């Protein structure tokens, strides 16, 4: 297992390097120049942008060096915790990510946990009550959850719960450590939107996997031994049906992080999604590289944890 983990960590490192390098190169070739934006954004300024001025600032931000030197310099500093300086925000990228990441994690983690806590039991119930009205209802809702666009659902929820019923705030984010009650109220709608797709996926996958497992011979044996339904499902069947569900959860982490861009925009939450989008539109290289690095690290490490969990779920799976 240790060897496996080490091997996976090395793979994770390679993936991160490849992802960040790709993003680095793509950003450099996008149209637009952050130095120009930096120099020309001041509305009051009569500044004439001269080539010398541009060169001086490029030198200050290290943008006049060869691309590979810039990249290696950045990646080495990144592993030391220095993600660079945002050209346009005039703060360190680490500081910006330090503010944005907890917000994203708070919402993303809540959505992730909810999608498991609700999705898996829903899938189990659908499987054991297959063909009944409950199965039909949950499956229909799951299908809606998978197909409905997150952005659209968010706007609908805002209008329904925020504007019409007036029971929840329209937008905003407050740290749970600052005011837990307001934070919870503000988090309900965005977390719901984020949970919808993974919850629906979990329910469907659990149902499908459970249906397969409960038709196995050993389950029939358990029934014939007179064990209760609860014991059969929870003790004998559940673990065996969770492997595809766990695999799906790995992909869900990606979609939760990815979907946050839209949710953060709709609900005005200053998280990682908004940070990276603003960075892209303003060609703020360091911000984009930093957020991609952090996001890639979180996702790859989460997938590593999921892969390790297979061994716990199924003792037959052993990693060399």
């Amino acid at each position, binding site marked *: 297992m240790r060897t496996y983990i080490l091997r996976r960590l090395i793979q994770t490192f390679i993936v991160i390097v490849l992802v960040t390098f790709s993003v680095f190169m793509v950003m450099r070739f996008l*149209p*637009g*120049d*952050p130095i*120009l*934006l*930096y*120099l*020309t*954004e*001041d*509305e*009051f*300024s*009569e*500044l*004439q*942008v*001269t*080539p010398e001025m541009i060169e001086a600032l490029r030198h200050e931000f290290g943008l006049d060096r060869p691309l590979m030197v810039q990249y290696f310099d950045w990646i080495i500093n990144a592993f030391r915790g220095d993600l660079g300086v945002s050209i*346009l*925000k*005039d703060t360190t990228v680490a500081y910006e990510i330090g*503010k944005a990441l907890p917000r994203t994690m708070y919402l993303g983690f809540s959505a992730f946990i909810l999608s498991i806590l609700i999705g898996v039991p829903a899938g189990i119930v659908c499987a054991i009550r297959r063909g009944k009205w409950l199965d039909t209802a949950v499956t229909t809702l799951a299908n809606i959850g998978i197909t409905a666009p997150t952005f659209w659902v968010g*706007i609908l929820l*805002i*209008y329904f719960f*925020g*504007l019409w019923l*007036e029971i929840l*705030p*329209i*937008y*905003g984010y407050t740290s749970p450590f600052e005011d837990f009650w307001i934070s919870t109220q503000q988090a309900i709608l965005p977390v719901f939107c984020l949970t919808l797709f993974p919850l629906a996926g979990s329910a469907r996958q659990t149902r499908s996997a459970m249906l397969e497992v409960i038709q196995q011979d050993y389950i029939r044996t358990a029934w014939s031994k007179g064990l209760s339904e609860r014991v059969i499902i929870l003790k004998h069947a559940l673990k065996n049906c969770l492997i595809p569900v766990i695999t799906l959860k790995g992909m869900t982490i990606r979609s939760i992080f990815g979907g946050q861009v839209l949710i953060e*925009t*709709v*609900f*005005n939450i*200053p998280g990682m999604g908004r940070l990276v989008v*603003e960075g892209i*539109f*303003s*060609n703020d290289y360091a911000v984009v590289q930093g957020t991609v690095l952090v996001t890639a690290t979180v996702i790859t490490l989460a997938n590593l944890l999921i892969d390790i969990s297979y061994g716990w779920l199924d003792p037959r799976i052993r990693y060399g």
Partner: protein
Amino acid sequence: MKKLFFTSIAILIACFMLLDVCAEAAEKKPQYGGTLTGISYPRAPKATRIGNPPAIFGADAGWAAQMLENLTRYVIEEDGNVGFRGVLATSWKTSPDGLTREFKLRKGVKFHDGTDFDAAAAKYNHDTLRKEHGTALKSVASIDVVDSHTIRYNLSKPDNTFLADVSETYAAFISPTAKELIGPKWAAENPIGTNAYKFVSYEQDVELVMKRFDDYWDPKLPYVDEVKIHYVKEALVAQAAVEKGQDLFITRAAAKEAMALKKKGYVIVTAPSVLRIITFDSKNPKSVFAKKKVRQAIGYAINRKVLSEALDWGYNPAAYQTSLEGSYAYNSTIKPRKYDPEKAKKLLAEAGYPDGIKINIYIERLRKRLWTAIQSQLQESGIEAKIKVNPSSKMRQFRTSASGSGGLAVNSILSNHISYKPDYILGFDQTMRSTSSRQPDLQRPAGLDEALIEAAQATDFAGKAKATQKAVQIIYEDATVVPVYWETVFWATHPSVHNIKHTYPDHSHRSYKGAWIEK
């Protein structure tokens, strides 16, 4: 008996009228307390900064105006003249030769850090401003402290835009003590001013929080305890928040949401923001736009009326000259170049292009809808236009760099603007003067600089108005730039909020110090 009856009726009527007046007076009386929350849109693509002074690149003094104050502020008088009222200055006088301006400063004014506002603090601020900002207070040669509350500005030449200049948001005052102790970067991001609200916190493009300054020089103000500005990108969300009452106003609302809120009883205020214009690479002798008739043809080729009706619910008035109708700078003798494709073709033929011309149009992504419409209008006049969409940074480069150093390709027009200023000379100075660093590809006509100088040095308002109208005429006849429409901004306020005042010069903010919330 009859007399008694009618006397009683008269007394009763008088009582009812008195009661009505009292009730109305009671309704209008400002109430103290509450939190005023509102929505603003973050400026794309760069994060909004709020600090002052603009010594730091990109510092945006807009919202700082709620926390900072100037010597004077603009007003537009009833006859359309630009006037000024004292804020931190109680009076001022000008020497007969126009070269000295002396201000008496308000006494008892404190900065939010408890230090005094006085002539030394004013001099510190404006000396810094002149040093670090290219064109602010450009006519000031030196500043003297006469006594603790008298300051004198010595001008290098008479300049009747001086009061407008000191009324601009960049000329507001911050605490020199705070800046010197902690540093200019901190001062740019933590405005320590003298206004009725003091800075609490600011997260870029998220939230700005200000709270009442208890030692404000006007003991009546402010009424509200706290002001919170939330930066919301999504127009639908902003509208829903205001409708719900989660926020009480929106600044710079979209026309559609403003109209929707108006139907629900919100108070909508509109004001001109910028004049959308077309500029040319007319300095390039190889460009078709080096010829005046081609530029004039562009003026006839655009159907402004249709554009202004189609865009933003008709709230953007068409512009045929570079001043707003009804303002002192409006030249009523100018015959507008209304849409006339045949006339445009004739002008092109006279310029030597009977078969039309091919041009490039450089625009920002935001304006694509407008320019696609203009492109099809130009087509009818034989002008084949290719639209080139650019990021904002590139557009700014075009506006400040001459061709050959990243500037425009030949035969190009540029989507551009002139910021609205009540004192038009300030706006023209930034864009139209030959010494301006903006639009280096633009050929300025002979006589324009002289007209602008004449307007700036006029000794009375009538003279200033006449010279400004002359400048407008010169720009029009030369077709130096082609105006398209005045862009309007909308503010929507909940009916429970009273007395939010509009401030000039650029409407990027309002004054909330007199605002109160009806409970």
